[in-house]
């Protein structure tokens, strides 16, 4: 059985980058799974989903069982099926790569199963009898919601405090539109909350509307899944001009406006950065009609944080990748608008990145900054930090007794949805132990 064809660039903001499998495709693809023992794909998954088990269930027609297997390990299996960099996780480990250079399409099969269950609208998990314990979860993103769901299943009462108007965190505000079509983030959040025992209070930001001290006083335990609120600056002149924006804000605007008109028609966009956010912003700019989109990165392509798959996605979407360019200043038109970005060529000398004094100027109507995010330390008084993140032990316990943390705000691994879900679930189990102890 041949592998499914590789996808190229997205066709539009509201169309699936990778379309769902139809039943025939799912049947053929699931039959390719060898049902390995102690499978490498499971080891490669941060949430350790029983991948051979769920694919086996698809082959026997037990699609519901397949979905429950996935969601038992990862309650955001639907989002992860869409956005996980499977090409460097489960599918990279698939043994079919060795003989045929074509892995089983695990992500797409996972979507096939989870979509079927969510279309039924049934919550397959039941809550244990109430323990009477109450846990505060700060942040309704992947870490917070996965933690809340597991705590609710274990019989604890959960209140989620969320600064924004909608639940889902980056699933709702930050992931690429063409990976999360059809309002999926909200469907999934509603599905997760339907287990019961979870209240979400929107418009409650830590350090503004609520304090850690209050939460510790009023709840039996606290989980922080606050993500990274702050965007890193370029620290170059002209950065504050109109026409320079944060890539994350740009994507959030597109996600929330459901913007699909070619509002950037004829415009030249320069994206600065080399991670997946930079790629997402550049591809979005192209889909909004921008004539020229250049992604400029200060090191080589092999150093980019974005996976090769994502880089190719940008390249097949008409984004020019320019490397070894470090931003020096943003040039204005004399008023408030911008005209260009001036870069300095860089090179590696003895492993160290240095400037060369040669400059390159790229004309730009819009500059999007994607040079990383950092922890917004607001409201974290008393918490020990390490490496700019919240410090925790292996279970997610912070330096404050009864306060746990997970997701992007801790240094737990890759900043991926699947890692945040793994953190949230693991912390829920640790909180359960803490409350019993």
């Amino acid at each position: 059985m041949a592998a499914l064809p590789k996808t190229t660039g997205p066709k539009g903001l509201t169309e699936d980058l990778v379309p769902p499998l139809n039943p025939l495709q799912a049947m053929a693809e699931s039959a390719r799974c060898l049902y390995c023992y102690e499978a490498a794909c499971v080891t490669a998954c941060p949430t350790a989903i029983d991948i051979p088990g769920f694919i086996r269930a698809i082959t026997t027609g037990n699609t519901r069982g397949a979905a429950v297997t996935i969601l038992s390990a990862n309650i955001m299996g639907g989002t992860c099926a869409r956005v996980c960099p499977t090409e460097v996780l489960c599918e990279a480990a698939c043994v079919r790569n060795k003989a045929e250079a074509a892995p089983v399409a695990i992500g797409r099969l996972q979507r096939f199963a989870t979509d079927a269950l969510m279309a039924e609208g049934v919550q397959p998990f039941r809550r244990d009898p109430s323990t009477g314990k109450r846990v505060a979860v700060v942040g309704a993103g992947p870490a917070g919601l996965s933690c809340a769901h597991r705590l609710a299943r274990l019989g604890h009462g959960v209140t989620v405090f969320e600064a924004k108007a909608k639940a889902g965190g980056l699933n709702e505000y930050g992931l690429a539109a063409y990976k999360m079509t059809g309002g999926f983030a909200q469907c999934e959040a509603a599905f997760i909350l339907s287990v019961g025992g979870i209240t979400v209070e929107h418009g409650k930001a830590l350090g503004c509307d609520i304090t850690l001290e209050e939460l510790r006083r009023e709840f039996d335990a606290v989980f922080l899944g606050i993500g990274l609120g702050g965007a890193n600056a370029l620290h170059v002149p002209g950065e504050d001009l109109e026409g320079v924006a944060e890539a994350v804000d740009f994507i959030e605007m597109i996600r929330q406006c459901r913007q699909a008109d070619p509002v950037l028609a004829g415009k030249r966009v320069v994206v600065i950065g080399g991670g997946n956010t930079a790629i997402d912003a550049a591809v979005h700019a192209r889909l909004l009609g921008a004539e020229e989109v250049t992604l400029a990165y200060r090191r080589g392509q092999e150093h980019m944080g974005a996976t090769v798959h994502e880089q190719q996605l940008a390249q097949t979407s008409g984004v020019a990748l320019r490397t070894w360019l470090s931003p020096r200043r943003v040039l204005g038109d004399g008023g408030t608008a911008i005209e260009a970005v001036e870069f300095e060529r860089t090179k590696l000398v003895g492993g160290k990145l240095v400037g060369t004094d040669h400059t390159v100027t790229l004309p730009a109507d819009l500059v999007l900054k994607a040079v990383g995010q950092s922890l917004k330390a607001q409201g974290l008084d008393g918490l020990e930090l390490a490496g700019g993140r919240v410090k925790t032990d292996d279970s997610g316990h912070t330096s404050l007794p009864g306060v746990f943390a997970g997701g992007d705000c801790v240094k737990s691994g890759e900043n991926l949805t699947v890692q945040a879900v793994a953190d949230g679930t693991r912390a829920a189990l640790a909180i359960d132990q803490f409350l019993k102890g």
Partner: protein
Amino acid sequence: MADLSCTIAGITSPNPFWLASAPPTDKAYNVVRAFEAGWGGVVWKTLGEDPPVVNVSSRYGALLDNGRQLIGFNNIELISDRPLDINLQEIKQVKRDWPDRAMVVSLMATMTEDAWVGLVRKIEDTGADGLELNLGCPHGMCERGMGSAIGQVPELVERVTRWVKSNTRMPVIVKLTPNITNILWSAEAAKRGGADAISLINTVSSLIGVDLDVMAPMPVVDGKGTHGGYCGPAVKPIALNMVAEITRNPFTAATPISGIGGVTTWRDAAEFLALGASNVQVCTAAMIYGFRIVQDMIDGLGNWMDAKGFRTLDDFVGAAVKNVVNWNDLNMNFAQKAHINPELCIDCGRCHIACEDTSHQAIRIRAVDDKRLFEVVNEDCVGCNLCSHVCPVPGCITMRREVSALPYVTWPQDPRNPNRIA
């Protein structure tokens, strides 16, 4: 989730999935791993009188499809080749450690009462839940007057069953061979002998293939080969038919059945149960995938029962038996026609050529723009299903019932039948 607990001949198990008497149940190590994986019960690999048999090297052959998926499996292994005492000690210990699981012990002996009763007495002492008489092994043992050599002669089936039944308190399951002319002869013989239950089928006598370099049957043992026992998905239809023959036969209908033969998924098990089996036994699927295969069997059967509104196995066991009839009881006035969905069609042309060359020339090709449109000629379609089976796309070709005001008429009543009864 539905209740999957199961009782057959008074033997209970938490689910209807047992491992059949075969290599996976040869010793405590395997059986404990099977119970840990969730199997509801086992039939311990057949015990014989000491000294134990000696097996040959090279024992299995397989029939694979192009994707290396297993279709059928064949073996020339004999019964347990371990000393009887070791097997008995292990059976006793495992049963003690796993009281909620069914522990049935398979046995075979030569055609003397003393031999059978001698073994039964020893097994009785293990605390096992029941006995399964191996009257079916079609290779090796039958050359020594055991296995199918007994099972192929109804009188011997009855006699052995009676010997055992009159010498034990344990429930007795008689395992039948499919290598016979009419399964009812041996099933009825088992019942006359007092069997508490029947299990079937044992393996089908087979020669899995020929090694064209060695010019010998596979599996090749030093340049020679012998016929073996065939099992796996390919034998399921043979087994389903034999189960149905027994459950719809008034004399044997009330005898509990343990269904065996190619059970690979929960759906296979549900089919055996629908035809009246009380549980199923599995071997090949476990040998191909490992014991973990039972997880999806349990989960899938439970989910299917929930979706159907069945709370216990009894809610659907035997539900299809009343619809298994003789050809002469089918409705001659029923008609269905193939329908091809052009939206799903991928233009392979297989339905056309199958019908054109080998059936009723009822699928026409019409050129529409640069695409071929496959159309069923209703007047010529006899509703045989061939096109729907060769179509690679599920749901593309469906069979639709023709609306008819004609009554249910069987062949014996049909006006076209020159020998009709009315």
